[in-house]
């Protein structure tokens, strides 16, 4: 289905497919669609849409035929090892690089600096004017994002108060510690309360206390309805924040979906059980990989499903207290993807 008519004032185009559940409708009313479509399908046009995006620099392909969307109000974790093409994708999305081919839309159209009032971007390569003062710098960036100087100053002071830097408002930025500078950078990024926040490794170099503070701030922005693209190598942050995850490798998409979907997809069918009774050590339906008197990890035999295993256990008189499909962690999935050799 390829639909491309505005919904809710967005001139967006969305493409549904195996990895993209969102769609928009051309000439069908919203209420009718709500009535006939499954609840999980979002009607909102995506805040970010990337379609068939390829980026080449000289002979080198940086990003290869990448497609994804970021839905309104979600935290979208964009993962990949160093040099996998994440930063280049974001730079192209924001109009800093030109794509070799494909479409990249923000808010329904190619990014334009006039959209800056709705954007907060914290790049990986970041810094501030070292010879300027904290408040002056935050006000300046607020003005660049369309705020009046007085409003920018008010918001900057409020942010500095929130992150414990109120007494540093008139200090030169170069005199702040790395962590303090990073907080100011986040303040600069979010001063306009943007619709779309793109955070590229926002917690890099932060101590645990400040990292926690930053994650809280991210969640606050999510709570007010911001769409967040979150780039990180910290998988625990992804598990805590992300609604959906995409992993790319060498500029190609490897995975896209919710955490639960990805885990399910990447799990190898192993079962973890807690039980009362005697676990039969051998059975046609499964192999026992690990066991204690009350727990075990089982692998279904070839051609058997986890339901077969469950029935077999119940048939053997076991009282199952807990039963779940063992799923790999995001870290395990990430490592598996990045250590896997490309097939010919």
């Amino acid at each position, binding site marked *: 289905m390829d639909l491309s008519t505005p919904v809710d004032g967005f001139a967006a185009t969305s493409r549904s497919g195996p990895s993209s559940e969102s769609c928009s409708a051309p000439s069908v009313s919203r209420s009718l669609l709500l009535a006939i479509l499954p609840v999980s399908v979002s009607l909102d046009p995506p805040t970010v849409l990337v379609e068939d995006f390829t980026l080449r620099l000289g002979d080198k392909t940086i990003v290869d035929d990448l497609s994804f969307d970021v839905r309104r109000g979600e935290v979208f974790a964009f993962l990949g090892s160093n040099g996998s093409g994440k930063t280049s994708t974001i730079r192209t999305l*924001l*109009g800093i690089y030109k794509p070799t081919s494909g479409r990249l839309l923000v808010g329904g159209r190619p990014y334009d*600096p006039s959209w*800056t009032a709705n954007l907060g971007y914290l790049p990986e*390569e970041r*810094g501030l004017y070292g*010879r300027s003062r904290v408040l002056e710098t935050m006000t300046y960036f607020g003005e*660049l994002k369309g705020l009046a100087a007085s409003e920018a100053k008010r918001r900057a002071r409020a942010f500095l108060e929130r992150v414990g830097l109120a007494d540093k408002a008139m200090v030169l930025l170069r005199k702040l510690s790395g962590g303090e500078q990073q907080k100011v950078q986040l303040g600069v*990024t979010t001063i306009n309360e943007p619709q779309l926040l793109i955070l590229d490794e926002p917690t890099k170099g932060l101590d645990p206390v400040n990292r926690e503070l930053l994650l809280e701030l991210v969640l606050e922005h999510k709570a007010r309805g911001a769409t967040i693209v979150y780039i990180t190598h910290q998988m625990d942050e992804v598990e805590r924040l992300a609604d959906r995850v995409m992993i790319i490798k060498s500029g190609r998409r490897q995975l896209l979906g919710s955490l639960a979907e990805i885990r399910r997809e990447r799990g190898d069918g192993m079962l973890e059980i807690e039980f009362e009774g005697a676990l039969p050590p051998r059975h046609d339906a499964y192999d026992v990989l690990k066991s204690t008197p009350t727990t075990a990890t089982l692998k279904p035999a070839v051609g058997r499903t986890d339901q077969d295993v469950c029935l077999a256990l119940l048939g053997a008189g076991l009282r199952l207290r807990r039963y779940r499909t063992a799923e790999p962690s995001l870290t395990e999935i990430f490592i598996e993807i990045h250590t896997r050799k490309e097939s010919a």
Partner: protein
Amino acid sequence: MNARLIAVTRREYVSIVTRKSFWLGTLLIPLLIVVLGGISALSAKSAKQSEKAEMGKAKHIEVDDPGHMISDRFLVPPVQRTSDREAALAEVKAGRIDALIVYPAVLNPESHIAIHAKETWITQRDRFEPMAKSLLKDSILDRVGDPNLIAVYNAKLPIETISYKDGLPAKDISALIVPGSFIALFYMLLIMSSNTLLTSMTEEKENRVIEVLLTSIRTRELLFCKLLGLAAVGITQLVLTLGLALGVGAALHTKLPFNIDFAKIVLDPVTIGLGFFYTISGYMLYAAIMAGVGASVPTAREAGGLVAFFLICALSPFYFIMALVAEPTGTTAIVTSYFPLTAPLVLVLRNALGALSPLEIVTSMVAMCAYIGLAFMGSVKLFELGALEYGQRLSFKRLFAKP
């Protein structure tokens, strides 16, 4: 101009003019030039005085004049005629007499006068030359015998030259003072601000701010605002320097080693306006070039070689300034007026000399604007390619890579 562009332009201006280095450069460097010039003039004056003083100390000077050219009435103590040149020379060598002046037996245009003198100091070796020339000149004039003619010869008769252009008397040389001062102003502006121009262009890159800025403003807008801000800085610097020079000049004009008749200074608004235009447009041309240089290097520090090259180009007309002054409408002057890197200074100079025809004024103004535009577009291209090349120079390969 929207609020974002105004914010960038204002920041560019304010961040520079609030730096101590800006005020040090703007006020102290011209002051330093004035002070050093004063010291140099005073030391030259003091050298002359000390030479005179040393002459005054001479107690015994002998003159060997085998041709009897020197009239006896000019030989007054401590100067006296010698009858034995060898003995007098021996006395000089022994340090007992101050000098021996030897005139040739026959005077003709190829003759030369020899002076043997007691060493005092290296800079005062020539101290007896004026006396030797004066003795000879006075003796020759003495032979004329007419005191009135001698007085006329010795008088400094004022000579007034009136030249005509288009049937009217041409401007007085004092009319060149104000437009000519733009030459010095352009020189100072470039020397004082070359570092500012470069650091201003590399600031965002060095501070890793550029990526965020480029999501709020287009590259060409960013560079345009920076150039506007820098132009405002240049005008501020120009006004301050001019004001300072006039203030210092007015306060110290009685103590200057040269005389300036302020009443004779002509203020021609067209010439002054053109001088201002060429100075500021030249400054902006080099600002646009520095933007390109800044975009292609990772830090301002690494741009030293390129900056030096462009500075030498900008100031190269000083090397052939005499040719330009002698023939301000000659081939050299015209060619260098249209070569972008030399045009600003040559045009400022030719404007001061009144050597630009109305047609040339128009074409040179258009050309300057075109050069700024071209340099600007080139810098935008370099900036787009190099702005995010953190920590490395922009390579030729990258410059000419297919998009």
